[in-house]
């Protein structure tokens, strides 16, 4: 399964995504998560977004 996702067949949606610049390792990781794990991941992403927003608010020229 891992190899079929990371080394997709030519012409497949995965191959098109890879050629577009999508990181297929992230696709693989998401595919292996349960729905609940994906929700927890969203919460982590939102916390990350909040952190970056806070830091962005303090950015200034050195």
């Amino acid at each position, binding site marked *: 399964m891992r190899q079929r996702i990371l080394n997709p067949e030519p012409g497949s949606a*995965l191959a098109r995504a890879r050629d577009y610049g999508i990181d297929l390792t*992230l696709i693989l990781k998401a595919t292996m998560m349960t729905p609940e794990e994906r929700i927890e991941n*969203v919460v982590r*992403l939102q916390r990350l977004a909040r952190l970056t927003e806070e830091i962005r608010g303090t950015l200034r020229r050195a």
Partner: protein
Amino acid sequence: MLDFRDLLLALLQAEARIVVIGGVALQMQGSAYMTADLDIAYERSRENAMRIAIALAPFAPRMRGFPVGLPFSFDAQALLSTEILTLSTTAGDIDLLGEVIGLGSFTNVLKAADVATLDGYTVRVLSIDGLIRTKRAAGRPKDVAGLHELEALREARTIAAPSTED
């Protein structure tokens, strides 16, 4: 400060009939897309609008993009008087949509939703197929990358479904 969990849990605890759509749904379906707001499709009944208004009241919702002091009463009538309400709250930005492009009414959105669990509550999340339909219908340049990713996720799940090897 965005706390998506607080907003969503408040709506779920109020038993509001909602489906998570937009960027958070994309993330929930495995996308690496980053978003700063929570998009929610809701059933446009008076009872449901009241549940949503009561659930969100503690977060002091106000119209996004308008002066902070502008009088605004967030209640069921405010929800039912428009198809889209874009709000800022103390827990972050939330968009409430009575209809969704590419899918239409809440009934159709509900049919296109997957089910997951958050802190013991059932949460409905727009499916990959539903997200693809909305992105195709929207047809914006920024949706192209999202479509590639969604179609790859759909294909990867098809590959993963019959086998759990390695």
